[in-house]
């Protein structure tokens, strides 16, 4: 990912409305993001644009991701 796109994405991960989402996305960015393919990184960026509550429900397993492209990233975001 280009530097600018990455920095924009970083901001949208480290400054959220919910602390739960801040923590989950920051951790993912630091620990997992670099290992993803370009397409997976793009999918993660799309997820980061979700609303906080929606995203937290996905990450915590209280809701399921219906978009087949994004579901594998959601699975990675979940910590079991």
């Amino acid at each position: 990912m280009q530097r600018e796109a990455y920095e924009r994405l970083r901001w949208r991960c480290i400054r959220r409305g919910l602390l739960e989402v801040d923590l989950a996305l920051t951790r993912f960015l630091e620990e997992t993001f670099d290992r993803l393919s370009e397409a997976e990184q793009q999918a993660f960026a799309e997820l980061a644009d979700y609303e906080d509550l929606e995203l937290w429900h996905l990450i915590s397993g209280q809701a399921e991701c219906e978009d087949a492209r994004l579901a594998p990233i959601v699975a990675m975001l979940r910590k079991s």
Partner: protein
Amino acid sequence: MNIPVLKFDAVIVGAGGAGLRSAIQLSEAGLKTAVLSKVFPTRSHTVAAQGGVAASLGNSEEDHWRWHMYDTVKGSDWLGDQDAIEFMCKKAVEVVVELEHYGMPFDRTDNGKIYQRPFGGHMSNFGEKPVRRSCAAADRTGHAMLHAMYQRNVKANTQFFVEWMALDLIRDSEGHVVGVTAMEMETGQVVIFHTRATIFATGGAGRIYASSTNAFINTGDGLGMAARAGIPLEDMEFWQFHPTGVAGAGVLITEGVRGEGGILRNASKERFMERYAPNAKDLASRDVVARAMATEIKEGRGCGPNKDYVLLDITHLDPATIMKRLPGIREISIQFAGVDPIKEPIPVVPTCHYQMGGIPTNYSGRVVVPKDGDYNTVVPGFYAAGECACASVHGANRLGTNSLLDLLVFGKSAGDSAVEDLKSGKAHRDLPKDAADFSLARIDAINKRKGGASVHEARLAIQRTMQDHAGVFRFADMLKKGVTQILEVEKMVENLEIKDKSLVWNTARVEALETENLIEVAKATMISAEARKESRGAHVRDDAPDTPEFPNGRNDKEWLKHTLWHREGNKIEYKPVNLTPLTVETVELKTRSY
């Protein structure tokens, strides 16, 4: 350097509940209004509020704004200003009904009225028995509020500047506020917003603590900007703590867990609450539990390698109960504590939750400062509302669900005041020639510095210092050391270095600028807390214990007054509490007990 100037009637810094509510008043009055936000408006921290908003609608049972007022004064431990409290409690019904008209999907009763639930501290008939006063929209009250008000603003043509960070307040030689400097993150460009009215609605600063329920965004930017511009900060020693935040993460574990039978244990697995509250045990009130936890940790009975947390044990509960009665708790625990609470206890610590103090305002949302013997001299052109402001309605301790109410009522009144002040149609006052120099110099210094501290290090140093020295339970010696230490940390913050020097989209630079705000709030808190030698509300000192002469350690003779911390010289002064409501008789001083 040539800095672009954008001219607006009003700029509002912050697009959370308070900022959006103000903006509606201004835009609907036909004023050209800009709203700046570090994030998309509906991602503001207001989204985290679930409990609801207080209003004595009396939909479920009899209620009255005067009972709400009584609860709020008592909650504040009599430090709240009674004119502002009357104003807020009286206005509550109106602002909640307005919100309903904006499209807020409140929960409803069978006959279509707003449904109201009970909440701690809400009582009928002047403290007699619990009353249902909280209005909610399922578990997404804050979310629904932001959406309803954002839509209303879009209709009213409010101009949003999203992913913009306000940097500094601009005041002219007579002290009038004439705008702010701000940076567009995408380009790194600094711009001047030249205005006739400037409203701060930047939210809280809970990130000064190592353990905080607040999202990362709560860095107290509005307070930092105000302090740098010579505005004192009021009652900054008062922070509400929640007893059970996940250790190391801060995420809130609701009281419900103890309600369902959760037990707190120390390093030797002892159920220590039996010693502190033999009857109520783990169900004792929030502050009693939090203080007991802090004492266990301070006396070396905490858990883990650093002995810095205790355990919340629900392993004895039936897993089916946990899943059914405590939804989300297992997920939070697995995600952020790395333990499955069905099998292992959850590490928890008392966690910072809400900032009672802030930028001093009167109940019309105008910022006020002491001048020539008058404590409430208005700073022309400057308004504040929401968690960054101190009206003061929360005093020494906030009543649950009163902060969403605060941001509706004072967001609206700050907007109305600005509309009124601008009616005269007076032109923009001239910008000082050096309007942007201060901000540019700050950025330049961060860009150029080599060999300084990293933002990460400095932020951690602030958070550790605050947590260890000015936490939920305070000790004279620790506070004294804390003052010395936070002034040391300040030197670190004055010397921040970032590796990435790029102009566009440089999040490291933004974080460095945030840290410069965080340190102002931290200093204000530590110094104000060290200075206040009594216990009151959320400020509880070991050396000001409960005695017959001073119940709960509160000393009204000497300390029934607001703290004002000035950045210049870290000077402290005090101003009287307003005990005179607008129309009703005063709520007499009494010992606060529940």
